[in-house]
């Protein structure tokens, strides 16, 4: 019902000012792609050990923090501009950051969550919050309370410039000079890299033996052990992959906004967590969808309502979902018998 109203509202906005709406949607989809990368880690970890890993948002920030000095090793500093020679370096640094981030998260699980696996739920939740503070504190001590300048490595050029499609829809037919809409290469790069990562993840989860073992562990830990699955291994793999995606997200974020700060993960983490809940926590497709929706909702709110209300709107959604539809949009559809 409320979804229908929202869609009607968006159609109305589109009729009023198509160019503005499309530009807003582009922003929303780009931000949403980044939220989705972080939301995937929340949902995967929740799916397998039913823990809300509050440190996950900071693992995301850590990706950017690790990426900066690694780029520096290749002579890329905050002033460096885009050039094709940097593309392979960038890809290499991405892979390295993802791997390092994954190892950090495996360590976190080993130290802070595994010893508490059979303890009451609240205990690992508290250590997760503790880990979050530790990570933020470590990044604060490392680089200080300032925003780090990140190189603007993605080209600022426009990928696609087209006139407002209003004419095509028969709207605004009277206006002669339709406004232009720009979609930047940056936005396209963010969305494409996210799509690639999500496809890789989905192939891994659904096709490989370890991926299937991870799903089995998430659905029934004891039964998984009876199949011969080493659940410590699948849980470690889950933390690794979640952190690798978040690390990629942190790098993408930093390259897109050209700045990153030690406490970025706090709000971004909460937004991504909301995205995971909206999509249905534990559900991978749901996290991707939730990320996208939250990004779009946030962008619409910032353009048409007020940016200062963003957090209110997002946490309002979180509360509404938890109250009215706790399984989220794509939550567990098959009943457990």
């Amino acid at each position, binding site marked *: 019902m409320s979804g229908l109203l929202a869609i009607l509202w968006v159609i109305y906005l589109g009729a009023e000012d198509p160019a503005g709406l499309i530009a807003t949607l582009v922003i929303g989809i780009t931000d949403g792609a980044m939220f989705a990368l972080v939301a995937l880690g929340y949902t995967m970890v929740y799916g397998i050990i039913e823990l809300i890993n509050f440190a996950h948002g900071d693992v995301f920030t850590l990706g950017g923090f690790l990426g900066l000095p690694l780029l520096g090793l290749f002579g890329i500093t905050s002033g460096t501009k885009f050039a094709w020679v940097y593309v392979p370096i960038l890809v290499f640094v991405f892979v390295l950051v993802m791997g390092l981030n994954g190892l950090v998260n495996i360590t976190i699980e080993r130290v802070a969550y595994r010893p508490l696996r059979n303890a009451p739920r609240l205990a690992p939740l508290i250590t997760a919050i503790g880990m979050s503070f530790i990570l933020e504190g470590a990044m604060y001590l490392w680089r200080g309370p300032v925003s780090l300048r990140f190189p603007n490595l993605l080209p600022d050029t426009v990928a696609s410039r087209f006139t407002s499609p209003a004419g095509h829809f028969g709207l605004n037919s009277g206006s002669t000079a339709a406004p232009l809409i720009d979609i930047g290469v940056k936005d396209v790069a963010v969305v494409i890299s996210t799509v690639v990562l999500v496809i890789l993840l989905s192939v891994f989860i659904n096709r490989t*033996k370890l991926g*299937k*073992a991870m*799903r*089995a562990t998430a*659905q*029934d830990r*004891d*039964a*998984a*052990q*009876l*199949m*011969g*699955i*080493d*659940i410590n291994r699948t849980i470690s793999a889950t933390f690794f992959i979640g952190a690798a995606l978040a690390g990629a997200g942190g790098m993408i974020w930093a390259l897109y906004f050209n700045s990153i700060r030690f406490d970025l993960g706090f709000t971004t983490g909460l937004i991504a967590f909301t995205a995971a809940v909206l999509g249905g926590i534990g559900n991978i497709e749901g996290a991707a969808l939730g990320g996208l929706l939250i990004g779009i909702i946030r962008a619409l709110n910032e353009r048409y309502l007020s940016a200062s209300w963003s957090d209110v709107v997002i946490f309002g959604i979180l509360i509404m979902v938890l109250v009215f539809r706790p399984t989220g949009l794509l939550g*567990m559809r*098959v*009943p*457990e*018998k």
Partner: protein
Amino acid sequence: MALLELHGVDAFYGRVQALHGVTLEVDKGEIVALIGSNGAGKTTTLRTISGLMHPAQGTISFDGRDITFTEASKIVGLGICQSPEGRRLFARMSVIDNLYMGAYSRKDRAGIERDLKHVFELFPRVEERRAQLAGTLSGGEQQMLAMGRALMAKPKVLMLDEPSLGLAPILVETIFSVIKEINAEGVPVLLVEQNASKALAVAHRAYVLETGVVAKEGTGKELLESEDVQKAYLGM
């Protein structure tokens, strides 16, 4: 020396003792039934053998080697497979993926495909539903899938926990005839059942568990004819 031996096994859930010195064995070619009322420790016995929990006292050995503290994920590889109580399928995975999960610890591809075919011969209904999510199957189909999944591990001993629970009488017949068939192919079966009369009828030997203690043991026939057992478990 029997294939699977438990000797004086004590097991606890927290401070509550669930098993008191349980001693039992399963030998090659046998169907051994484990009967008893709710909470007698039947499932706990299987969990202890599978390594999902470990005994506080006593030993478990399989094929001449001590597996008392072997991890659950390693037990299957040795050839002890369990179809757990409540079936515990992977509800959000397809039927075929559930079967392949059963073969998780195996590497012999040709053998896995052969066993898959065999499972489909035993349970044609499971083959019909191969692409469906396991959670959408009926209770009977789920039980067949759970047994098929356990068979996919190529068991040297197969443990079935309440395979007939909640099934229609006609399906109970099917399940028990398949148990006999599996056993006739040379797989020893340790069968936990509340349906004592059915279990004792197919079992070569049986144990009666009462509040964590082996109260009685004997051949299936002996126990079927024993007055105590008739009174307590057969409702006669």
